[in-house]
Each structure stands twice: as structure tokens, then as C-alpha cells.
């Protein structure tokens, strides 16, 4: 246990080492650590923000989905109504067409019948005249007795 010049050497080494550490070791390491801390803090903040954004986006998506559902339902409703209306209209039109066709058919039939009746009457008149001629065995002047014939025809 003796104090000697070693103390001077050690003191010089101590001073040099501390100065070297202060100038060339501590600042770069500390700078790297602090830069990384800043990066991590930024990253955490960004992830927080992203989580919030995600939450907002999910909320937005949910409301939009609801709106879309409501809208779709209303569109379907409207479509159904339109469909019913179109069907109804078509049915009405068909009914009217049917009636029109029926009516025209009836009219035609009526006309035809009347025409046939008329023809029959004519032929009956002729037959009647012929029959009468045969019965009377004489010629009846068609022009003179036309009034009687007409009356007969009208009675048929």
C-alpha cells in the first residue's frame, strides 16, 4: 500500500478517457437512443390515430350499410308498387280489349244474322210467291201484288 507516481498516470488516463467518452462515445449513442425513442413514440401515436380512424371508418361503414339497406328496401317497395300498377293496368287493358272484341263479335254476329234473316225473308217471299202461283195455278203479277207480298214478308 504505497502511493506513487502511478496516481499521476492514472489521473491523466482518467481525464483522457472521460473526455474521449464525452466527445466521441456518449453523444452518438444518446442521439441514436433518443432518435429511436422519437420514432417509437411517433409510431405509437400513428397506431393510436390509425385505431381511431379505423373505429370511425367502421362506424361510417355501419351507418352507410344501414342507409343502403333502408334505401334498398324503399326501392324494392317502389318496384313492387310499380309492378302491381303495371299488372293492374295490363289487366284493365286486356279486359277492355276482351270486351271490345266480344262486342265487335256480337255486332258482327248480329249483322250476319240480320242479313241471313233478310235473305231468308226474300227467299221465303219468292217461295211464297212460287207456292201461291202453284196453288193458284195462275200467274200473279208480282208488281201488282207486291204490297201483299211485302206485308207477308213483314209478317214473317
Amino acid at each position, binding site marked *: 500500500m504505497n502511493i506513487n507516481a*502511478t496516481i499521476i498516470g492514472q489521473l491523466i488516463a482518467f481525464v483522457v478517457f472521460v473526455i474521449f467518452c464525452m466527445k466521441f462515445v456518449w453523444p452518438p449513442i444518446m442521439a441514436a437512443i433518443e432518435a429511436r425513442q422519437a420514432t417509437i413514440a411517433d409510431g405509437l401515436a400513428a397506431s393510436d390515430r390509425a385505431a381511431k380512424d379505423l373505429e370511425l371508418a367502421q362506424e361510417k361503414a355501419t351507418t352507410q350499410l344501414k342507409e343502403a339497406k333502408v334505401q334498398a328496401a324503399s326501392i324494392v317497395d317502389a318496384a313492387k308498387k310499380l309492378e302491381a300498377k303495371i299488372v293492374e293496368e295490363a289487366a284493365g287493358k286486356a279486359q277492355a280489349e276482351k270486351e271490345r272484341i266480344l262486342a265487335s263479335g256480337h255486332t258482327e254476329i248480329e249483322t250476319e244474322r240480320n242479313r241471313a234473316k233478310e235473305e231468308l225473308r226474300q227467299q221465303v217471299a219468292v217461295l211464297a210467291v212460287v207456292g201461291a202461283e202453284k196453288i193458284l195455278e195462275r200467274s200473279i203479277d208480282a208488281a201488282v201484288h207486291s204490297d201483299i207480298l211485302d206485308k207477308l214478308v213483314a209478317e214473317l
Partner: protein
Amino acid sequence: MSAAAATQATLTSQEYIKHHLTNLTVGEGFWSWNLDSLGWAVFLGLVFLTIFRSVAKKATPGVPGKLQCAVEMVVEFVDDSVKGTFHGKNALIAPLALTIFVWILLMNMMDWVPVDLLPWLISLATGMDMADIYMKPVPTADPSITFALAGGVFFLIIYYSIKVKGVGGFMKELYSQPFGHWSLYPVNFLLEIVTLLARPLALSLRLFGNLYAGELIFLLIATLGLYQLPVHFIWAAFHLLVIPLQAFIFMMLTIVYLSLAHEDH
């Protein structure tokens, strides 16, 4: 150790221990240099600075390598210790604390080197007789080394006391407390001077005492013959506590003393 037993069979235990506690010295009187302590101290300081400087040069704020992680753990540990105690702004204290902690840790770790390993290697390399080889490889078991460290810290205590409080303020602090009355100023001065001087003295003697005692016990164990191996193991395991603790205490007290020097009463 067994080699020691062979070559130093003629030595008594006392002579063996004395031999191992003698430094490799050149020079006369005060102007003698303990080449082993100083050499190992400088070498270990260079090891510390080389490793830390290589990391500092390549330090990336991105994903760090394993060595950078280890170095950053040490740096952050020291930084936290400094920030927890010292609240001023001072670019010196944290690197100073880092240097002290790692350097003293490395120097203390020389205590784990088997006491006869280095002399044996030297005798193998040079062919010298082990009785002529003086090698005390634990620098912190050399009072010159610990006094130099504590002396550097003491100088900084004085420097910052004067820088922060001025010469007048520093002197006033020395005589005006703990007792406020003027008649007790001489008593105050005596007490404060003792307090001031006790700091570096306690700092250096605590470190020296612990490591010197540790080395001495290792040497005593080395004289036990065959039974020394388990005992060596136990004592070395115990140094897992002593070595980092002494480095930490030295660093912590340095920070505390310097933060006291910055406080204005």
C-alpha cells in the same frame, strides 16, 4: 495454482502472498510507477472505449444490433441513474459516470483472473522463474489507482462548487453551516473541511479496500492446496455481487457528490 505450488514450494504462505501483493514497479520513491496496475488500467480503459466507440460510430436509430443493444442498456442504465439524482444541465456528468462505471467494472473483473494465471503465462512466454515475476493485475486493488479516480472526482467537486456558487459562495458554504451563529464558524469550517475531504478519501478507500481484501482472500485460498478449488468458486461467485456493486457505488457517489456541488444553499 498447481504450477505455483510446484515452483513456489519453497515459499511459505506468507511469502507467497506478499509476493503476489507486490507490484511490478519501476522508479524510485514517489517517482516509481506500478506498471502492472497502470498498464491493466489503461488497457481496460481502451477496451471500454474501443467497444463503445465502435458502437457509437455505427449507432443506428433503427433496429440495433446485439452489441449496440448491450451498450445501449449500459448507457441507459447510467443515464437513468444520473437523471434520477442530478437535475441540472451538465454534459460532463453522464459520460463521466459511464466511464467510471464501465472502467471500474472492468478493472474489478480482473479479480476473477486466477491469481497465478498471468505469472504462469509470462513464465511460459519468457522462461523467467515465477518467483521473479511480479504481476498484480487488479488495478482497483492498487490505492494509487483508486486515489487517482477519487482525486479526479474531488477536483470536479471543487470546480463545480466554485463555478456554480462562486469562490465566495463556496467558502461561505464551508463556514456558515451547519451552525448559523458566527461564533461557531471555526467549528463549522472544521466540520465542513472534514466532510469535503472525507468524500474522495472514502470513495477511493472503499473501492480499494473491497478489491484488495477480495484479492487477499483469493491468495489465502490459493495456499489451501487441493481444497482451494471449491472455495475459490464460492469466493468468485461472491464477487458477482462485489464487483458490480463497487463499480455502481463509485459511480453513484460521484453523481451524488457532483449534484451536491451544483446545489446552491
